[in-house]
């Protein structure tokens, strides 16, 4: 009997290849390709009066230089608005190459194709652009004040105003025995994958076929966009996603200007063409996230139970809205976390600024929402003089209340209905893990040494595994090896490992015999993409279903070959056998028998000659059947499944230097059944690292004129390994999802969500200073201490 792999710490099979440098990324494809460099706007807001590219054409090694004037048809239209929404009344998207106006530093204006990237960059210097500078709108306050407009035809810089409520929050707050109001801010950060954006295209003129490689989180999306923009039949376009060096959200937006420009160049020039984004370009021309200002009004009772919650917030979406309102919608719904306020009202404005566009970054609006809700919980506890964990506990949705309907609409257009969870049990676990009840003793011990420590707790719920669907194809070859294809892409998650575990368990084959292909439209043309912590839930479930179909067929054929009942068969290590007998047949042989065209080219085919299947009186392929041993299926859930977690952190703040040190970081995590605990823990580790970055280090330092002052890894402070906790204590809770066959929930984004909330709480606890804006640096902590001592009338 094969041991079940589901739930075990199977070593990732990807890592040997990836850590040895033998991964194959977009930039490794087509080494002979021509290279693209893009002229990007040096101004945050300007009208383009003229562009002179004359001098470029004489440069040896330059094959093309294009501006907007060189685009036609669909290419001359704005890029698509991927996710429209009825409240997105003033959505705007950019052109592949700017037409008349630029709205952020980094916006693409012209493109050069040359023998190599060096020449292409040299050539950019010869392009002369005449600009008329316009005043820049930078920051939410400036956008909100609307004294200047990003787009002339968008009044107030407001792209969308959205409102949702459940109950009468205003009345509940008015009637509540206690009320508080808070203003809370989160700054911009960005995904910053190791590999930036990249695209390669080859036009096969003989076959009228375009092949595109993109470092994307959705190959099917890029394919549809390229076909539409270039006027090609969908079936003439293949999009292949090779190894991707991280995505974290930024690569779900599509098509990027270069994703359509490079294929167009390949077609026009008849040569392979490549664009490999560099780090500065990634800073100024991909996407950022997170900047929001929030105002909270909350009414609560003597126990801290929230009776009414009213949140108004302002979301900075940058210069354009290609990805719609996903991020603020997620904030507006997911900030509720594990709690059930008596009444809730939320309203947000999504605002234009002359800065890089905003698309989801791991967590996607949840870190902001979690920060708002958890700061509110801490403020309630502080005002009542209660334990912060107790206040949370009285607000929890209880285990017997699932499914729990919040009476709101989630980002996927479905009801915000939690499927399962156990928040009280989770709170007990996190308190034990971090030593919550023993902390005051620890604080006293540290104080005795002149050291200052604080503890923070943050809880979240994450809607994962959003639809609409994913599919899978499972093909058992005559060799007995199993080839699996699913359409979503991989950017380092370990899909080969996790999906092979599912297939090995379901089919009874060896883990090593399962090969998984992702993100290749030739193998699976129907797919959505890898985002929203959905790959395991969506493709994992589809693969499970497809494997089940392949297994049913294998058993049917094997039963006939072995002259046995299906019920008496079992599959282990790739061999079907009749339980309790010696009779058996390898799956490879079953695969041979599944195809009436039995050319005996291999040993398996020869071996199959001893078996006989099929009724000679009927067609070789029966009605409703297919040749081959394959299974194909799709998974499409009614709504998202809701994972949850709680983080607790103990920090030490230096009384003199204001340095902030992490002493302990604890995570309790519930993603339903675990496919591979090692992969889940890896996801949590990476997420926590990004949470540390967002809380203590990372920000986009735009100046008033819209220049990004820290567009390099020298000044944009992603945490090094030395800034991340040396150990992260993790405990799991498994409340299975009833929505899918494996009982799983997503785990990809979880680690990052409560970072800022937990750190703010811990620093506040250490310093006895109100922390309302994140990230926080030692310099800012110093300023807060100074302000507090000034207010207290002490000498600063």
């Amino acid at each position: 009997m094969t041991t079940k792999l589901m739930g075990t710490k199977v070593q990732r099979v990807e890592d040997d290849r990836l850590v040895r440098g033998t991964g194959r990324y977009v930039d490794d494809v087509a080494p002979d390709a021509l290279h693209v460099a893009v002229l990007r706007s040096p101004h945050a807001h300007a009208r383009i009066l003229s562009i002179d590219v004359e001098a470029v054409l004489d440069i040896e090694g330059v094959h093309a230089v294009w501006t907007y004037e060189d685009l036609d048809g669909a290419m001359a239209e704005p890029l698509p608005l991927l996710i429209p929404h009825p409240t997105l009344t003033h959505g705007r998207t950019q052109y592949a190459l700017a037409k008349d106006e630029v709205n952020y530093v980094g916006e693409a204006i012209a493109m050069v194709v040359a023998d190599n990237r060096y020449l292409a960059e040299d050539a950019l210097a010869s392009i002369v652009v005449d600009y008329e500078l316009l005043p820049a709108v930078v920051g939410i306050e400036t956008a909100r004040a609307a004294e200047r407009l990003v787009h002339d035809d968008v009044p107030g810089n407001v792209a969308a105003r959205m409102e949702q409520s459940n109950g009468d929050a205003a009345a509940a707050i008015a009637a509540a025995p206690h009320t508080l109001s808070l203003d809370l801010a989160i700054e911009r950060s960005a995904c910053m994958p190791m590999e930036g954006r990249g695209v390669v295209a080859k036009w096969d003129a003989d076959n009228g076929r375009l092949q595109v490689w993109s470092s994307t989180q959705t190959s099917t999306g890029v394919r549809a966009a390229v076909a539409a923009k270039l006027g090609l039949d969908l079936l003439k376009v293949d999009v292949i996603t090779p190894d991707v060096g991280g995505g974290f959200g930024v690569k779900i937006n599509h098509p990027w200007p270069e994703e359509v420009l490079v294929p167009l160049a390949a077609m026009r020039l008849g040569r392979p063409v490549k664009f490999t984004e560099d780090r500065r370009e990634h800073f100024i021309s991909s996407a950022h996230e997170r900047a929001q200002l929030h105002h909270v009004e909350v009414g609560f009772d003597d126990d801290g139970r929230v009776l009414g919650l009213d949140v108004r917030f302002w979301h900075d979406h940058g210069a354009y809205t290609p990805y719609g309102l996903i991020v603020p919608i997620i904030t507006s719904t997911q900030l509720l976390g594990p709690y059930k306020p008596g009444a809730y009202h939320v309203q947000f404005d999504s605002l234009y600024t002359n800065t890089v566009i905003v698309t989801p970054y791991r967590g996607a609006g949840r870190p902001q929402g979690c920060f708002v809700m958890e700061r509110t919980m801490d403020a309630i506890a502080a005002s009542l003089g209660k334990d912060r964990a107790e206040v949370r506990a009285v607000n929890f949705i209880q285990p017997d209340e699932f499914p729990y309907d919040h009476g709101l609409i989630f980002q996927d257009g479905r009801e915000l209905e939690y499927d399962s969870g156990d928040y009280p049990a989770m709170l007990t676990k996190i308190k034990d893990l971090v030593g919550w009840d023993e902390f005051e003793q620890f604080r006293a011990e540290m104080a005795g040494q002149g050291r200052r420590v604080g503890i923070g707790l943050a809880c979240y719920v994450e809607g994962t595994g959003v639809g609409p669907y994913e599919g899978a194809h499972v093909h058992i070859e005559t060799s007995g090896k199993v080839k699996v294809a699913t359409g979503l892409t991989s950017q380092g998650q370990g899909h080969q490992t996790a999906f092979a575990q599912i297939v090995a368990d379901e089919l009874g084959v060896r883990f090593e015999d399962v090969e998984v292909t992702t993100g290749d439209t030739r193998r699976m043309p129907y797919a959505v993409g890898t985002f929203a912590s959905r790959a395991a839930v969506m493709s994992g479930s589809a693969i499970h279903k497809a494997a089940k179909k392949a297994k049913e067929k294998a058993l049917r054929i094997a039963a006939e070959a072995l002259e046995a009942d299906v019920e008496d068969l079992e599959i282990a290590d790739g061999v079907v056998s009749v339980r309790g007998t010696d009779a058996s047949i390898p799956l490879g042989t079953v695969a041979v028998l599944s195809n009436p065209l039995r050319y005996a080219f291999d040993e398996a085919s020869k071996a199959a000659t001893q078996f006989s299947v099929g009724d000679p009186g009927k067609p070789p392929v029966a009605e409703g059947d297919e040749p081959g041993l394959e299974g194909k299926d799709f998974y499409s859930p009614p709504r998202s499944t809701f994972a949850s977690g709680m983080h607790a952190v103990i920090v030490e703040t230096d009384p003199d230097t204001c340095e902030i040190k992490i002493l302990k970081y604890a995570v309790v995590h519930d993603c339903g059944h675990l496919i591979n605990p090692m992969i889940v823990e890896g996801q949590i580790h990476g997420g926590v690292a990004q949470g540390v970055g967002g809380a203590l280090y990372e920000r986009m330092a735009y100046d008033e004129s819209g220049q990004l002052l820290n567009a390099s890894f020298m000044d944009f402070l992603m945490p090094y390994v030395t800034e991340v906790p040396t150990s992260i204590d993790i405990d799991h809770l498994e409340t299975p999802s009833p929505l899918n066959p494996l009982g799983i929930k997503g785990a990809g984004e979880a680690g990052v969500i409560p970072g800022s909330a937990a750190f703010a709480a811990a620093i506040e606890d250490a310093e006895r200073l109100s922390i309302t804006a994140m990230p926080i640096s030692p310099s800012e902590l110093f300023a807060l201490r100074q302000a507090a001592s000034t207010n207290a009338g002490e000498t600063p």
Partner: protein
Amino acid sequence: MKPAPFDYVRPGSLGEALQALAGHAEAKVLAGGQSLVPLLSMRLAAPAVLVDINALPDLDHVRVDAAGVRIGALARHARVLADPDVARVQPLVTQALANVAHATIRNRGTTVGSLVHADAAAEMPMILRLLEGSVDVVGPSGRRTIAAEDLYVGPLESSLHHDEIAVEAFFPALPANTGVAFAEIARRHGDYAMVGVAAVVTVEGDQITSAKAGYLSVSDVPVVVDLTETLQQGGDPGETALALLEPETDIHATAEYRAHLVRVLTARVLTAAVENAQERV
């Protein structure tokens, strides 16, 4: 992020290297490349010629004697850092080097290169000033020694002539009765410090006879402040230093916070240096 076109020469002798430099007003010397190459890639520098001195013979030495530490132009930070004789004869060099960037950068970056790059946010120029060391340079008219106090003339600007190559740095040995200490605070491990302070203190019994501190990232050029009088008169050394420093606000820290760190770190390194001096009596 590709450099603008440049010519590249890799001379096999110092003479050839000097010739290459003399031939091009826009030539730059390449040693470890840890500052220069990023500047090239970001097109913040566009020299016509790179004169790669990595093939020059006899320049990778680290020689230690009773007088002090002599470091050749091709000796990498990592090698100097790992040298126990350096740590024995001038421990401040070792302490400061441990704070220079990251291991991978120290493996290629050269100490002499860092000294003549003249970055006031870098550790080694300040240490050279504080210890009153010197740099030997060779040019068309021969070899000369530039004292540290004459080396740093402006932001990222040394007094080397364009046609000269720095061949060796000298850090004097730490005398008896004298102690050192180094402290810096950076946003992340290995980053340029927001403020860094080093101290050299000489004691006679319980008396401090000399106390000096060097500062990085709070001025355009490395600054050394003599704190002897302040300490002898029971003054506030941080305030004395701040009178000579110009902390500025940038995206990582405000001027006020930097000034605060100057006070905190000055006190910390003085205390540590005094202790160290008393251990060395």
